């Protein structure tokens, strides 16, 4: 019993899946809603990926959709064009889906390395302009490459992703990001974010830590791309525009930059919200833009105050852990009290 309380994720996570699954089986959630949930899963993965760079390392990537595009197209190339996965028996399909996803991740990671290497060794905000340019260049390359459908888009990608697999990859991504943050690698990145000069003089090879985090982030974005491609079955270069990248930025900052839980909730809620509030359609991006400014100005810790879910068992602080309900970490309560005492 005690063990269970300590490891509540073993119950919570499968439970979430079973609930969604049962709702789907009993037709309470129709296919459209399920698809929204799957896309929310993709956005959660993307936001986690962005959090590694913008939240944990304090660098500024604003063209992350570019890595997603690479992952999507590479994986689709793998599963549709190189191997015709649609014609395979189901088990083989699963294997090739996983292989395609890994190929997408590796493809994105390679680009992450090529871009991060020259840029991240510099001090300053060069990453922003370089990732922005990268996102646009990838799109123009896709647009002139007939092998991937050029400007017409790539159709007929086998539908290999499912609610189950997206759920699995969301969980794996969260696990990886949690482990990253709570390790010497993550602490190195947090140190760079807080004070790069001090980090350097504490023996942290800043360029190496930044590139590691960036490449990992690109890999995860590539995975999200593969999930996306194999859910929607259709890719178009303009999907991965700058607007797409800013969507992820909004999810991340609204949820709470630096906070794993915040970026999960931000991505999920802001993906679902426009579907619920239909009138938002043409005002969606106006609201998102305004929201971004307001959050940065008045609530830099994000809508959820930088709290972390207890089941993540995070030891290292992304941003301030402030807890007030049992759902959230206990230890942080002490921190708050201690901090209040200190400031008296």
């Amino acid at each position: 019993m005690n063990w269970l309380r300590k490891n509540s994720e073993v119950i919570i996570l499968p439970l979430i899946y079973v609930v969604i699954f049962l709702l789907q089986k009993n037709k309470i959630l129709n296919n459209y809603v399920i698809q929204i949930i799957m896309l929310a899963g993709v956005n959660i993965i993307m936001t986690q990926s962005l959090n590694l760079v913008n939240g944990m390392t304090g660098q500024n990537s604003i063209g992350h959709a570019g890595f997603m595009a690479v992952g999507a197209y590479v994986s689709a190339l793998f599963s549709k064009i190189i191997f015709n996965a649609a014609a395979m028996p189901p088990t083989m399909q699963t294997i090739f889906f996983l292989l395609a996803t890994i190929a997408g991740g590796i493809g994105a990671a390679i680009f992450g390395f090529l871009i991060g290497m020259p840029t991240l060794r510099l001090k300053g905000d060069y990453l922003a302009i370089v990732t922005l340019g990268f996102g646009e260049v990838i799109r123009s390359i896709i647009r002139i490459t007939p092998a991937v459908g050029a400007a017409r888009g790539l159709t007929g990608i086998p539908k290999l992703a499912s609610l189950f697999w997206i759920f699995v990859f969301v969980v794996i991504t969260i696990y990886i990001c949690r482990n990253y943050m709570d390790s010497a690698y993550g602490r190195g990145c947090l140190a760079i974010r807080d004070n790069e000069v001090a980090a350097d003089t504490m023996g942290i090879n800043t360029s190496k830590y930044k590139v590691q985090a960036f490449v990992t982030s690109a890999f995860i974005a590539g995975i999200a791309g593969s999930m996306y491609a194999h859910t929607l079955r259709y890719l178009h270069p303009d999907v991965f525009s700058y607007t797409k990248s800013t969507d992820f930025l909004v999810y991340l900052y609204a949820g709470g930059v630096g906070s794993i839980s915040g970026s999960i909730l931000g991505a999920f809620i802001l993906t679902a919200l426009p579907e619920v509030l239909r009138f938002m359609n043409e005002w969606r991006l106006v609201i998102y833009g305004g929201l971004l400014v307001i959050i940065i100005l008045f609530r830099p810790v994000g809508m959820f105050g930088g709290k972390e879910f207890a089941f993540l068992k995070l030891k290292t602080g992304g941003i301030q852990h402030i807890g007030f309900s049992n759902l959230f970490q206990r230890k942080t309560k002490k921190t708050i009290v201690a901090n209040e005492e200190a400031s008296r």
Partner: protein
Amino acid sequence: MEKFIQLLVYGLQLGSIYALLAIGYTMVFGIIRMINMAHGDFLMMGSYAVFFIVSLFFADQMLGPAIALFVILAGASITGFIGVGVERIAYKPLRNRPKISSMIAAIGVSLFTQNFFRAIPFIGPNPRTFPKLLKDVLFYVGPIQLSLVRIVVIILSIVIMSVLYFIIMKTTIGMEMRAASCDKDASSLMGINVNRVISATFFIGAGLAAISGAFYANNYPVLTVTMGATLGNKAFIAAVIGGIGDIRGAVLGGFIMGVIEIMISSVYSELAYGISFVVLIIILLLKPEGLLGKPMIEKV
């Protein structure tokens, strides 16, 4: 050869537009070390402002050069004040926060303005056709066909940039700008009103963006709410190539970008953006501070 000179003129003209836009990026960066991701939208607002002034007051008339200039300057002032307002509301409170915050705020501003303009009915999502401000005259120098308006735009841009250079080097506000870009705290101790200097910077930057928007729209007369995004990115790349923080660098970078883009587009138009991006990466590898920038040593 004729082709080359013609392309060079096109390139210089596009370059002057990039240069005017890049100056805004570089001035703002020089003073508050912030990359204003919404700067391209000042270009968009400027060209819409000019569009509305012309269609309200001078519908279907051909403007003389004096009125055209006046209309452009009016559009520039309106945009300049919007620029000042944006800084006051969205960026000023972030001055002492990590730089990444103000950059993200700027992305929010950009997202907001573009989509707000798209959502409100009297601007809307459909492209508008920009009126011809001046009748173009084509003339020949030997076998080379040239367009008067293009030449005028290049010359006008150079005049404007010279005026700006004069303002910055010779006037009080220019001196205050240079002081503030060296050390904000020290200059405020010396009695310089840093808020005023920053407002002036945004006014000038947004105004120049509006002028470049009018020049751009005069040649490519399609207005859309997102027109500032791509142009802004290219101008930003230009500013980095020239050495961000240095106005002469922005001008140089702008002309380089314009000429490269036109030359490459004449061969393969889809590649132009990609190549300018590759140029950026190469410059960052070889000379990260840009062509005219000085290496910065962070004071510890």
